[in-house]
């Protein structure tokens, strides 16, 4: 199996961009990624495009050049971008292609996501009666977690405050103004214990990554970042997941836990080897839970780690250094490739004001979404 290197990353800022289409943003991100990699679009042999709102992400080739390459469209909930990345990486690992692109794009309306619950295998009344909200699932999950493991409301506030602080350092972020812990905890309650400023918002943006066979990476770049593992897992019986009318009477590990273990095994690395982390922070509680689900701490340790500032850019376990979903918002198809963009900048030492000190060598990213799908990627220099 061929090893895979990331030789280029590109990002269209996340936020709101008026009439600009998701396809146009994706074209910008892909051009930026190709320029970063030093390849031309005509060098790209295969591409995977992720989106929730765009039926045919492959329409982006109409702006990049109609080269006739295979281009496959991907949707996999909030794990869409991790899926596009994995498929692009697998296309190289298989030996079939040398240069692949993964691109994600979306353009969402403001406010919580909604859809037809039947499309998620839930009954129609699940939406009509007011259950079809990802936000209330996250409220229930973190509420129990806080009860079981002694996490305070203030710690939820610290997670969001860190996200906004890091967002203020990131010119591509949606939310770029620091907010105090008190203002976060005191903002409007949406789903107890989660308040308005503890949630990410659906927004707009695009991100792209150029991958190549590791043994030819030096032709394109002097600082390749290697993709050491990409794993995807769906829920197993006993997992309590979003958009479900019921759960088994006893709980098993969430799909993130399973995906994470598999990724560490594939990479031959463990949590203590990781220098910079990107986690799915759909809400502040999700970041706390995902710290433990990905092996970075024991359940409950987050209370102390957040109080000590461990997850800050200069801390021992920097998490969501670009502001994460809370400061960037979530254009679903692009979100996971934003994580990869940030990790690549960090591992190259190009993250500017957000740079994690001490030459970080290993980066880790995790996505989680409906109806219980997790994706993990591990990168290293």
């Amino acid at each position, binding site marked *: 199996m061929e090893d895979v290197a990331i030789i280029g990353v590109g990002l269209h800022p996340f936020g709101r961009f008026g009439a600009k289409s998701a396809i146009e943003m994706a074209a910008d991100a892909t051009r930026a990624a190709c320029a970063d990699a030093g390849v031309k679009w005509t060098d790209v042999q295969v591409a995977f495009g992720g989106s929730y709102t765009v039926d045919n992400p492959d329409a982006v080739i109409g702006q990049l050049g109609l080269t006739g390459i295979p281009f496959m469209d991907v949707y996999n909930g909030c794990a869409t971008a991790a899926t596009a990345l994995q498929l692009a990486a697998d296309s190289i690992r298989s030996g079939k292609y040398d240069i692949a692109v993964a691109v994600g794009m979306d353009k969402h309306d403001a*406010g*919580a996501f*909604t859809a*037809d*619950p039947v499309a998620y295998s839930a*009954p*129609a*009344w699940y*939406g*009509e*009666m*007011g*259950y*079809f*909200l990802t936000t*209330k699932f996250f*409220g*229930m*999950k973190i*509420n*129990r977690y806080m*009860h079981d493991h002694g996490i305070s409301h203030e710690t939820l506030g610290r997670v969001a405050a860190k996200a906004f602080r890091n967002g203020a350092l990131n010119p591509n972020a949606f939310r770029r103004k620091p907010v105090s812990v008190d203002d976060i905890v005191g903002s*409007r*309650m*949406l*789903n*107890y*214990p*989660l308040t308005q400023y503890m949630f990410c918002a659906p927004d707009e943006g695009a991100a792209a990554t150029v991958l190549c066979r590791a043994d030819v990476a030096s032709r394109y770049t002097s600082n390749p970042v290697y993709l050491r593992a990409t794993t995807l897992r769906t829920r197993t*019986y006993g997992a*309590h997941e979003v958009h*479900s*009318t*019921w*759960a*088994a*009477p006893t709980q098993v590990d969430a799909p993130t836990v399973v995906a994470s273990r598999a990724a560490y095994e594939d990479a031959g690395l463990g949590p203590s080897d990781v220098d910079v982390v990107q986690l799915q922070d759909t809400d502040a509680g999700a970041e706390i839970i995902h710290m433990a689900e990905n092996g970075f701490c024991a359940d409950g340790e987050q209370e102390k780690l957040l109080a000590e500032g461990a997850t800050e850019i200069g801390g021992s376990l920097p998490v969501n250094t670009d502001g994460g979903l809370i400061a960037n918002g979530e254009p679903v198809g692009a979100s996971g490739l934003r994580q990869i963009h940030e990790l690549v900048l960090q591992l190259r030492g190009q993250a500017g004001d957000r740079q994690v000190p001490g030459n970080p060598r290993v980066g880790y990213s995790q996505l989680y979404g409906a109806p219980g799908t997790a994706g993990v990627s591990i990168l290293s220099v």
Partner: protein
Amino acid sequence: MTQVAFAPDVFTWPSDAPQLVGGRCPSCAAVAFPLPSACSRCGSTDVERHLLPRRGTLYTWTTQDFLPKEPYASGETPDTFRPYGVGLVQLGDEVRVEARLTESDPRLLDFGMEVELAIVPFRTDDDGTEVMTYAFTPVQGPGSE
């Protein structure tokens, strides 16, 4: 006043002791709610109708403090919206079900508290018909029915 069930196949009603209608897999014994066409655990398509216990405990909960977008069909507007509680209710060793709670005050909800199924008004239509749905309500102390 006419009362109708929002989703007639989901709970037994009218009844003095209504129950949620779930399914039990004869192959692997997994219980689900509502009655599914196939078992999530083993894939069997022979799941049998199974009435769930009326009482349980509150495994976890949250509140819904903003008006959900469509397809929410309570007929409320942002001005008339009344927040509601949502819980994951443990019904013995059978299953946990997601359900509205009649209580939405965080100070009055607690992990492990005993709750009981209730059929409650969800919406009143223009013709005065009251549309009923299922919810769990805190049991008011020992022995109360």
